[in-house]
């Protein structure tokens, strides 16, 4: 039993960074109804900018965090202008395919610029295991969890208490109606991208600081984790993304413990399959989609 609880606690800690990734995906999907396959890679660009200034200038973690964020945001803007803004009204498929192409481009760019297999990344804190109520928690995990949750709360506040958040939610629900309110949907999408990239950049920093290394496979990894977490929680739902992230973290940890490391990804993908087959809206997405359908039916 104690193992189960320990795994759950670890899973929640790890899941918090999946949650941040998922939130970024879901924000972009929410405002544009399109999947951005270059999201993970754009975060990877940020992370490699961070490792670059760590290696070149021996910068401290705050500077590296800032560099990672800026790098991710710039890469995110690049993706948005090229794949989404440029292919406006037309085929959503074209946007997704081009985002896939840019994913390949960004990955190649990183592999060519950073030819070694792995690069160092500064840690956030030392490796200090704490013991709380018989459960051991790594200090670095706890710090990561605290930062991630603070960010999520801040985002929630922004979405529900600010004018910009209102605009994002309006565009996510109904872009045509939003335009009738005078909301500039292009600008909202652009800024949603910036926020999503910043969130992702910070998630990337937390993850890299935890692993204390970065590899060019980070883009792929982040894409899978973020996508799965988002789909588990429900596409287009921020609370869903958070829930999905934590769920994924816990599932992975439990699977690794009880079944072995090889089964970790298998279980995660299996769970995704089950969800897509029986509850494609995800944990929370279904309810929202249901409500929307009912509301439209009243008309």
């Amino acid at each position, binding site marked *: 039993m104690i193992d189960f609880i320990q795994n759950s606690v670890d899973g929640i800690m790890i899941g918090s960074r999946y949650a941040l990734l998922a939130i970024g995906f879901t924000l972009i999907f929410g405002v544009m109804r399109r999947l951005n396959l270059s999201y993970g890679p754009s975060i990877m660009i940020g992370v490699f900018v961070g490792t670059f200034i760590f290696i070149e200038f021996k910068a401290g973690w705050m500077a590296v965090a800032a560099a990672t964020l800026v790098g991710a945001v710039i890469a995110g803007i690049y993706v948005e202008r090229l794949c989404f803004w440029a292919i406006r009204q037309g085929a959503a498929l074209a946007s997704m395919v081009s985002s896939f192409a840019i994913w390949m481009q960004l990955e190649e760019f990183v592999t060519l610029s950073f030819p070694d297999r792995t690069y160092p990344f500064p840690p956030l804190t030392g490796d200090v295991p704490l013991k709380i109520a018989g459960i051991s928690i790594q200090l670095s995990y706890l710090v990561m969890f605290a930062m991630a949750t603070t960010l999520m709360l801040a985002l929630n506040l922004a979405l529900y208490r600010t*004018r910009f958040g*209102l*605009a994002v*939610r*309006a565009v996510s*629900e*109904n872009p*045509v*109606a*939003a*335009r*009738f*309110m*005078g*909301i*500039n949907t292009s600008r909202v999408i652009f800024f949603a991208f910036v926020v999503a990239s910043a969130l992702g950049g910070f998630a990337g920093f937390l993850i890299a600081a935890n692993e204390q290394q970065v590899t060019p496979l980070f883009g792929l990894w982040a894409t899978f984790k973020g996508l799965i977490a988002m789909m588990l929680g429900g596409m287009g739902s921020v609370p869903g993304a958070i829930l999905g992230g934590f769920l994924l973290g816990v599932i992975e940890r439990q699977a690794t413990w009880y079944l072995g490391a090889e089964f970790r990804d298998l279980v995660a993908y299996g769970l995704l399959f089950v969800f897509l087959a029986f509850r494609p809206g995800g944990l929370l997405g279904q309810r*929202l989609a249901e*409500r*929307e359908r*009912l*509301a*439209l039916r*009243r*008309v």
Partner: protein
Amino acid sequence: MLEVRDIVTAYGKIEALKGVTLSAKENQITCLLGPNGAGKTTLMMTITGILRPRAGSIRFHGDEIAGAPAPQVVKRGIALVPENRLVFADMTVQENLAAGAYLRARDKAGVAEDLERMLTRFPRLRERSTQAAGTLSGGEQQMLAVARALMTRPDLLLMDEPSLGLAPLIVDEIFEIIAELNNDGTSIFLVEQNAHKALEVAHRFYLIEQGKVTFEGTPGDVAEDEVIQRAYLGSGAV
């Protein structure tokens, strides 16, 4: 106030509007009637800037707005109550109204005043002000859509088929509200299929068929039965 001249709007190769000319005068209710597919909603979309016309001009208060993007059209003082309401189902009634006041957010006092005024004029919205808009009945959603559009403090209110899908009693209520709004000084441009009710409130009306305006007049001037028949059934059936 609003002068539409020879507007041509097309979807690819299909011309939905083939040169539409009409005008809406200040402080009046102008009504556009027509059968399904005549181009009524396309015209609304063109005026509000969602669609760009291929040719023609739209002048509002003398300024050319044809082809202007939607946020600009709203800024100039034209607000639309869309077909099918299009309320933000997951947001509360209050948030929907706040969305309506999006462009005026800096004028906090004015927006608060208007919010209060909307909730007073539509008591049922006040009752449900913290409910999600998707849980409201059709008639209540229509009222919300109207109130939301009014939050922009428009000079001209466009309404696209406000009676669509509503029970007759509610339709009566909606048209009462339309008449009231006009009495209080709002200029309204109304698109309707329910020619009966529309002709009761309109000062001036146009009939659009297959992308062109085929008739214009004042209610009471002409045999309305013929107009109503054409509006519902198209001129082929008359």
